[in-house]
C-alpha cells in the first residue's frame, strides 16, 4: 500500500499522467465536437495514425515543429472532409464509413511511409518539442517538475477550454449542440444542417490528428506503425464517460492516464514480481470500464447522434 502512496505523491508520476493524457485530451475533444453535432466518427483511430505520421514526416522533411502540427491537422481535416461528405449529405452508415476511414488512413500512412522512405530499416528520429520553461512556475519544488511539459500539452488544455467556451458561450456552439439533438430545429431556424455537421466533423478530425501528432512530435520523436495502439477507441469511450461535456471528458482522460501511469510503475514494485504483467496492462481498461458504468448512467446522449438528416423528407 505504501508503495502506491509513494507513487501517487511523486512529481514524476504526475508529469507522466499529464503527458499520457495529452493526446487523449486532444482527440477526445475532436470526437466530442463530432458527436455533439450528431456524427459518430469512428475514423478517429486512423486519423490519429495519419496525424502522427504526417506531422513527423513534415518535420523530418525540414518543416519547423509547429509546421508539422499544421500539416498533421490539415491531413486530419482532409479525412474529416471525406468522412463527413459520405455521412452527412449522402447519409451513409456512420459505422461503416468510420471504420473505412480508419482503415484507409492507416493504410495511407504505411503506404506513404514506404514510398517516402523506401530504404530505411528503422524510422529516423526528429528533434521533438522540449518541455517549456515557465519563469517562476518551473522553479517551484514539486509543481515545477510535474508541470514540466511541452507546448503541445499546454495547447491541449487550452483547446479543451476553448471547445467548452465555444460550445456553451457562442452562437456557433449553440448551433452545434442543437444540430446533434434535433436537426429539424436547426433547419427551421434557417441554419444549414449539412454545413454545421460537416464543419464539426472536419474540425474535430483536425484535432484528432493533432492528438496523433503529439505522439511523434512530443512524446516519442519517431514514428512506429503501432504507436496509436487503440488510443482512438479509448477516446470514444472517454466522450461517453464525459457525458459529452468537455470538462468531464478531460477529467476522464486524466483518470485513464493516471491508471496507465500507475500500472507501469506497479509493474516495478514487489507486486510486479508475483502478478503477471498482462494484468497490469489491463488495469486501466478495467478501471475505465467500471468508471464508465458508474458515470454514464444518467448521461444525456445527443438525441440525433448517428441519425442522418435528409432535407425534404419528414
Amino acid at each position, binding site marked *: 500500500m505504501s508503495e502506491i502512496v509513494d507513487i501517487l505523491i511523486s512529481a514524476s508520476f504526475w508529469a507522466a499522467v499529464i503527458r499520457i493524457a495529452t493526446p487523449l485530451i486532444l482527440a477526445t475533444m475532436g470526437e466530442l465536437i463530432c458527436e455533439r453535432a450528431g456524427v459518430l466518427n469512428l475514423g478517429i483511430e486512423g486519423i490519429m495514425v495519419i496525424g502522427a505520421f504526417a506531422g513527423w514526416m513534415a518535420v523530418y522533411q525540414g518543416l519547423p515543429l509547429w509546421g508539422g502540427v499544421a500539416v498533421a491537422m490539415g491531413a486530419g481535416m482532409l479525412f474529416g472532409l471525406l468522412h463527413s461528405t459520405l455521412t452527412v449529405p449522402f447519409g451513409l452508415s456512420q459505422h461503416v464509413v468510420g471504420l473505412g476511414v480508419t482503415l484507409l488512413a492507416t493504410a495511407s500512412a504505411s503506404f506513404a511511409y514506404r514510398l517516402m522512405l523506401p530504404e530505411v530499416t528503422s524510422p529516423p528520429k526528429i528533434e521533438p518539442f522540449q518541455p517549456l520553461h515557465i519563469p517562476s512556475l518551473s522553479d517551484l519544488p514539486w509543481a515545477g517538475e510535474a508541470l514540466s511539459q511541452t507546448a503541445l500539452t499546454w495547447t491541449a488544455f487550452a483547446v479543451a477550454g476553448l471547445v467548452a467556451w465555444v460550445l456553451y458561450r457562442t452562437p456557433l456552439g449553440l448551433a452545434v449542440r442543437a444540430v446533434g439533438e*434535433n436537426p429539424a430545429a436547426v433547419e427551421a*431556424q*434557417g441554419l444549414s444542417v449539412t454545413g454545421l455537421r460537416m464543419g464539426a466533423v472536419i474540425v474535430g478530425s483536425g484535432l484528432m490528428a493533432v492528438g496523433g501528432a503529439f505522439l511523434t512530435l512530443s512524446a516519442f520523436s519517431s514514428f512506429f506503425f503501432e504507436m496509436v495502439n487503440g488510443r482512438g477507441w479509448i477516446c470514444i469511450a472517454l466522450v461517453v464517460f464525459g457525458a459529452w461535456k468537455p470538462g468531464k471528458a478531460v477529467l476522464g482522460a486524466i483518470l485513464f492516464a493516471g491508471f496507465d501511469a500507475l500500472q507501469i510503475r506497479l509493474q516495478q514494485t514487489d507486486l510486479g514480481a508475483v502478478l503477471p504483467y498482462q494484468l497490469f496492462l489491463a488495469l486501466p481498461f478495467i478501471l475505465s470500464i467500471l468508471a464508465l458504468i458508474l458515470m454514464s448512467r444518467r448521461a444525456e446522449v445527443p438525441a440525433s447522434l448517428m441519425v442522418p438528416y435528409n432535407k425534404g423528407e419528414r
Partner: protein
Amino acid sequence: MSQNAGAEVVLRLDRITKSFGALRANDAVSLTLRRGEVVALLGENGAGKTTLMNILFGHYVADEGVVEVFGAPLPPGNPRAALAAGVGMVHQHFTLAGNLTVLDNIRLGTESLWSRWHAGAREKVQRLSRDFGLAVHPDAKVGRLSVGERQRVEILKALYRDARVLILDEPTAVLTPQESEALFATLRKATALGLSIIFISHKLHEVMAIADRCVVLRHGRVVGEVDTHATDKAALAALMVGGELSLPRAEARAPGPVLMQLDAVSTPDRGAAPGLKAVRLSLRAGQITGLAGVSGNGQAALAEIVAGLALPGSGAISLRGSPVARWSPGEALARGVARIPEDRHHQGSIADFDLTENAVLEGYKTRFSRRGWMNWRAARGFAEGIIRDYDVRCPGPETRIRLLSGGNMQKLILGRAMAPGPEIILANQPVRGLDVGAIAYVQGQLIAARDRGAAVLLISEDLDEIMGLSDVIHVMSQGRLSPGFARGTMTAAELGLWMAGQKFGDSDAA
C-alpha cells in the same frame, strides 16, 4: 367579403405544384393572405396542407409555382430567406431541441455564427411572453416542458424574429381546450398588431371562432374558398370531404358481462402527473366507457395499466372475473386487449419501418410467422387489407410510415388494432389530428366493435366526443375516478364540475 378585403397583400402563393413520386400532394394551389387576416387552411388528412406550408417556408422545393412575401418572390428551398422575409412557422411536429433551454431554442440562428451573443435576448423574450400571454420560463429545459409550453416556445420563436406572417400547422391538435383558448387569445393580440396568420386545424368550431376566411384543399387542389361568417360547420365539412357527412351516433344497448375490472388500483405520482388513487373501473362487453377529463389527470397512468405497460402499485386487475397473475403488454395482447395509443409517433409506430412491418408489429410472433420464420406474403396481404378497408392514403405497403400524414398513420394503427377482433379496446385520443371524415370513420369502427360485443375504453378530452359515443361516462381528476354515469344522465356543465374536481370528496365511496 371580410373586413380585411382592402388591406395590403402580405403573402401570395401562385400555382404551387408538388409531387412525391406518383402522388400529387399540391396541384396548382394559389392563396393570398392580407395584413391582419387569419386564413384557415382546411382539408382531409393527406390533402397537402403541411406540404404547402413546407414549400412556403422552404423545407420543400415546389415543382412549379412561386411564393411572394410583401411582393418579393422567395428563393425556393431556403428557410433562412423565409425567416428573413418575416415568415414564422409553428410546425405540426415541433422543431425544438430538448437539450437546450427555452431562451437558447428561441435565439438559435438569430445571430451570426461567428459573433458573440448580443445582450438583450432574455429581456426581449420576457417582454414578448408578457405582451402575448405566453408564460414560459426562459431558462427551463425544453425537454422537460409540457406540450402546451412547447407550443408557446414555438410561437415565441417566430415573434422573437419579428415575424409578420405566422403559420400554425394544427397548433391545437395536442392542446387541452383550456390551452387552446389561451392560444386564441394570443393570436387575437397578434392580429390586432397587424400580423397575418395561416391557421390549420381539423376542429371546425375553432376555425369558425378564429378565422376570417377558409381555404379548403382536397387531394392537393383548392376546392373552395369562403368567408367564415358566410358559412357554417356543416357546409365546411361537406366542402372538405366532398359530400354530406353524418357523424355516427351510438344507440343505447344492453351491456354484457364485465370483461375487465380494476379494483382499488393505485399508482405512485410521477413528478407533476398524479398517479391513480384507488381507481375502480369495470369495462363491460358491448359497452363504450368514456373517460373524460383534462389530460394530465391520470389518464396516461390508467391507459398504461389497461395496456399492460405498467403494473398497479396496489389493487387488482381481473379479466372475465378471474384475477390476472402476470400482466405485461404481450400478455394484454394475448388476452385480447387492443391498443390505440395516444402518441402515434412514439408508441404506435416505428418511423423507418414500412407499412407492412408496422402493420404486423403486434402480431408478427403469432399470426405472421411459423417456427420462427416470417410469412411476409401474409403480412403484406394484411397491410394491403388495412390500406384498402381504412382508406390509408399512401403510395403502397412498402412506404415508410414516417412519410404518411398524421391522419393516415392513425388509420393504419386503428386497422392493426381492430384486425384480430379484440375483446377490449383501449382507444386513447383516437381521433386526435384526424379530419372530419376520418373521425366519422374511426368512431363508426368503435361503435361497430361495441356492437359485436367488445368493451371499449375511450379516453378523450373532447366532451362532445365522449358524450356522443359513451354508454357510461367516468371523469378523471387528480388521479381519482368518478362513478360511472349512464348515457344521457349528465349535462356537459355537470361533467365540467367533476372535471374541475369539485364533486369529489364525500362521494368517493360511490
